[in-house]
């Protein structure tokens, strides 16, 4: 009970309340799709009015009536409205028509699945009775038989359909649970671990209590977030058709259990709770085994990053598809897993993905709890020092003695990089950077390399050679076509042989191919003329290819990863540097410095700025150098708009200036992140310190 009170105190309640409100805000924002509340109300009003008129009819009849052209109550309502209202009304009407078409098609669709199953079994490639494929077909037919009798009807499904596709609940629930665990493990940093370790009721009982707290926390947090979101949806869309079949919603056309929408929401909640609980238990186990809370959070963040990467990169049909299916990111897309019909297995063993999820989460939960309990019982607060550790301590002592003779700036750097383990963070950053600067590297064919050579040797501001080459090829082609036509005329008059006709026709084909090879130059010429007329820009004849990789659409992932990794590294290093002082009590000694606190603060801040600059130069220097070696950077003096994908940009920029501007923008943002981290961490630590007193 004391543990419960410790964790779920005022601080947690405040954070949780803010999170619930944030969640509701996010839900409303994502559901609104940029529309205002009055627009949503208007849409809801028209949608429900139309459904009210049509719901008592047979779907086929309703579909006929639901037409603005037909003489019906639907049309008469439409005619009464103002022009803008008519647009909203007809948009809702079209969606309802799609819904009706789906309802009409559904029974036949389900029957077709049975028929497909029978047909597929007759094909030799699927007919091996011992194969997973054959048995999957059998299971599919059997599973969809369950929904043969489901009767769909027209209802307003908006509340439920908007709710089930909203995923932020699970991410927020997980973050809150990580917060709970972070608070639970406060003993690791405030010196209480030794006392907790000697708990009089026994560590096993403590570990078991913590398991209960985690389970309760996951249940309460997920439950409240889940049902407040559903309530919001209910209020936003005025009603929810909770008794209608879940298959009423088209995205559930392949859901093979006969359930009402309310039953599905409860089913969804139970699965969501399992997913969040399992992940929380795994995070708990990580916190138990990793001695420092911040390192635990970092490891978890890196692991989630790897899972996200695997989820994005692996194709569903790949042999490595299992790493996409059993993936933490996918696990949080609960509705995707349980609403989509998909089976896995081997040979005659076939099982649905939702059952796999349930089994895997159960096994993982049990394993994580067992690990967490064992770790709590057996891990000691203090580790016995080995001989090597003692030697290392001696060497460290001598090193510290040497260090004392250095300047304050050197000592600050030392604190950032070595005492605060900043070098480890920089190492991880360097590995990420080295991998991602070459991410998505393009291979160019001989044809494109030839074109790029022509751009470099004969392109640029004066590109007469290219213009002449294009004109020459165009002229050659046109002459060849005329010659072939003349030859055909002579052949028909008996004045030319078939061989001559064939030769002339072949010449046309070959010149067409040669002309095709320079079509890129022709398009580029047209583009340069267009920007000259429209913007008054004298563009250069240059290749888009390399620059598209450097800062065009193919650079997005590379640039995003490098920027985020650098920002995360700065935050971790700087925050840890400040927290370290307070954790070790060094802040009192530093604040008693004979030069004054400001002097120390200035040096600390400036050292941080210098490190930020060094890291920025390292990452982006490596990036630019790699881009230069892979793609070259020709014609940096060319107007930026010479690149077709930069049409409409500021006409006074050159390519070189644009590259520099982008780098400067990134640097300014990174600097702001550094300043924000420095200030926020200092404020938080000061507030905490005052609370202690």
């Amino acid at each position, binding site marked *: 009970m004391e543990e419960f009170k410790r964790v779920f105190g005022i601080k947690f309640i405040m954070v949780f309340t803010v999170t619930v409100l944030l969640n509701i805000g996010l839900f409303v924002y994502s559901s609104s799709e940029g529309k205002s509340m009055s627009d949503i109300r208007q849409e809801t009003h028209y949608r429900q009015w139309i459904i009210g008129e049509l719901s008592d009819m047979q779907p086929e009849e309703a579909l006929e009536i639901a037409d603005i052209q037909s003489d019906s109550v639907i049309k008469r309502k439409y005619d009464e409205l103002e022009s803008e209202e008519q647009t909203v009304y007809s948009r809702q009407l079209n969606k309802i028509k799609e819904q009706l078409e789906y309802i009409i098609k559904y029974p036949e669709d389900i029957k077709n699945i049975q028929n497909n199953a029978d047909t597929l079994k*007759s094909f030799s490639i*699927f007919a091996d009775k011992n194969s997973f494929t054959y048995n999957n*077909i059998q299971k599919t037919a059997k599973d969809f038989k369950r929904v043969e009798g489901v009767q769909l009807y027209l209802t307003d499904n908006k509340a439920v359909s908007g709710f089930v596709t909203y995923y932020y609940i699970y991410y927020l629930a997980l973050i809150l649970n990580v917060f709970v665990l972070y608070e639970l493990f406060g003993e690791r940093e405030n010196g209480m671990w030794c006392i907790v370790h000697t708990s009089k009721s026994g560590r096993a009982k403590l570990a078991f209590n913590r398991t209960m707290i985690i389970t309760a926390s996951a249940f309460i947090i997920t439950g409240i977030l889940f049902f407040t979101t559903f309530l919001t949806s209910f209020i936003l869309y005025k009603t929810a058709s909770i008794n209608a079949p879940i298959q009423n919603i088209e995205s559930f056309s392949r859901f093979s259990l006969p359930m009402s929408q309310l039953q599905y929401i409860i089913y969804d909640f139970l699965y969501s709770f399992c997913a969040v609980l399992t992940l929380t238990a795994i995070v708990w186990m990580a916190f138990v085994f990793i001695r420092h809370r911040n390192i635990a959070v970092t490891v978890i963040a890196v692991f989630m990053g790897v899972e996200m990467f695997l989820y994005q990169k692996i194709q569903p049909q790949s042999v490595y598809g299992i790493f996409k299916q059993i993936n933490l990111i996918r696990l949080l897309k609960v509705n995707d897993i349980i609403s989509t019909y998909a089976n896995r297995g081997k040979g005659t063993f076939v099982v649905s993905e939702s059952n796999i999820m349930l089994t895997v989460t159960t096994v993982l939960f049990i394993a994580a709890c067992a690990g967490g309990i064992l770790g709590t019982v057996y891990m000691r607060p203090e580790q016995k020092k080995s001989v090597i550790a003692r030697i290392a301590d001696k060497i460290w002592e001598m090193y510290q003695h040497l260090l004392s003779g250095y300047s304050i700036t050197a000592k600050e750097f030392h604190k950032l990089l070595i005492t605060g383990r900043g070098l480890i963070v920089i190492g991880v950053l360097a590995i990420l950077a080295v991998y991602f600067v070459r991410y998505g590297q393009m291979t160019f064919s*001989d044809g494109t390399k030839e074109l790029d050579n022509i751009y470099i040797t004969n392109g640029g501001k004066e590109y007469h050679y290219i213009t002449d080459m294009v004109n020459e090829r165009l002229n050659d082609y046109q002459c060849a076509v005329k010659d072939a036509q003349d030859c055909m005329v002579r052949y028909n008059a008996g004045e030319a042989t078939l061989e001559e006709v064939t030769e002339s026709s072949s010449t046309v084909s070959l010149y067409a191919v040669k002309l095709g090879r320079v079509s890129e130059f022709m398009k580029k010429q047209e583009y340069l003329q267009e920007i000259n007329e429209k913007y008054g820009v004298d563009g250069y004849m240059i290749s888009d290819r390399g620059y598209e990789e450097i800062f065009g659409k193919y650079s997005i992932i590379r640039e995003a990863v490098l920027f985020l990794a650098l920002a995360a590294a700065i935050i971790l290093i700087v925050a840890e540097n400040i927290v370290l002082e307070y954790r070790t009590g060094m802040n009192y000694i530093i604040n008693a410095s004979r030069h004054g606190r400001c002097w120390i603060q200035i040096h600390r801040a400036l050292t941080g700025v210098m490190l930020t600059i060094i890291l920025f130069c390292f990452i982006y220097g490596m990036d630019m150098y790699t881009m230069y070696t892979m793609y070259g950077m020709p014609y940096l003096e060319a107007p930026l708009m010479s690149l077709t994908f930069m049409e409409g940009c500021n006409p006074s920029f050159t390519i070189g200036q644009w590259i520099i501007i982008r780098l400067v923008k990134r640097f300014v943002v990174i600097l702001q992140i550094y300043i924000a981290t420095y200030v926020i961490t200092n404020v938080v630590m000061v507030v905490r310190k005052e609370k202690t007193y």
Partner: protein
Amino acid sequence: MSKKIKYIVAVVLAAVVCVAVIFTINRKKSGINMNVGELSGNEQNYWNPDIHSISKAENGYYYLHYDGKDLLVKYFDESSKSSVPVCAKAECSHNSKTCNAWLDTDEYLSSPIYYYKNNIYVVRVEGGMAKLVSIKADGSDRKDVANLFANDRITSISMVFHNGYVYAYDHIGHIGSSESGKEIIKKINISDGNSQDIVEYEGENSAVMGARSYGDKLFYKIFQYSVNKQTLKANMNFQLYYYDYTDGENKKVSDMNICDFCVDADNGMLYYFVVGKGLYSQSLDGQNNKLIYKASENMVSAVMSYDGRYIYMSNGGMGSTTDLSKTVEREIQVVDTTGKQIDTIKLGNEIENLYFGDEKYLFGTKSDKLVYIDKSSLGNGACVWENAE
């Protein structure tokens, strides 16, 4: 000199002359030996090698079907004469990436497709690099097997499968390029993806085309052209070569302008079509070269196929460039191995792609759908294109 000695000298001289004559005759006889040994049985060398959107499996045919929106791997079943996407999910609509048969057109090329030892092989392009992808026969488990070469998302890749290796080349090569280029055939190990170049040809406006595997040899053509700008005359030339799998040697078969060829391994014969001249037959040891079918107004050059029984010659090559005045109709001439005409199959303007086929069916596409002719109807002049879908 005594009579006896004169007699001995005469005999010796006669013997020397005989040996010389025999030696000369044998030298003339030796020529180039293209004996291919036994076929492996899964070479499928009857298809159109550079328009290869279909491949034979044990009881049917896998093919790629693109309807302008979705690219699907499909299977034509011989017994039911119907097609199905290669996706065993009865509930699937075959229009999204969760479908086993669906190929993303942003990645995958709509040609070629091959079936070899229980796997389907297609090509996708990522980051400008063409990659060979294998798919299990039931459509599951895709994986990248090997990098091929740089590709601008053009369906110009052709392949031959033999003895656990893939022999890949680009059949557009450097045609239309103003620079000299190297045309290669790459040999790639299917199990580990390791590759080496086994054919390298350097020249201007060249390409490797029409490779087919027979027994222990890989036959291929080198296409080259030059244009005289003053006379606007193109000089296009095909040269036939073979690569010996056993010793790695490349040899030229002939200096003639051979637009296509096929090999009858059972009877040791090579059939080849010389532009403007016609169809020739020759034994694989280089002897008995004769013209068996003369080129005509409708058949100046040909794309060929041999299904073990008949030879098929389509004028869909240079002969059809006379389509400029629509005086020449697209057709396939079916002849036996002596050059005797068996049938004529009209293609008209409806048949877009001609794939040829094995001893049972001839395949093509009509309105983007797979169609076929049952070869048992050949010889009656009543061949009908049936829908396979």
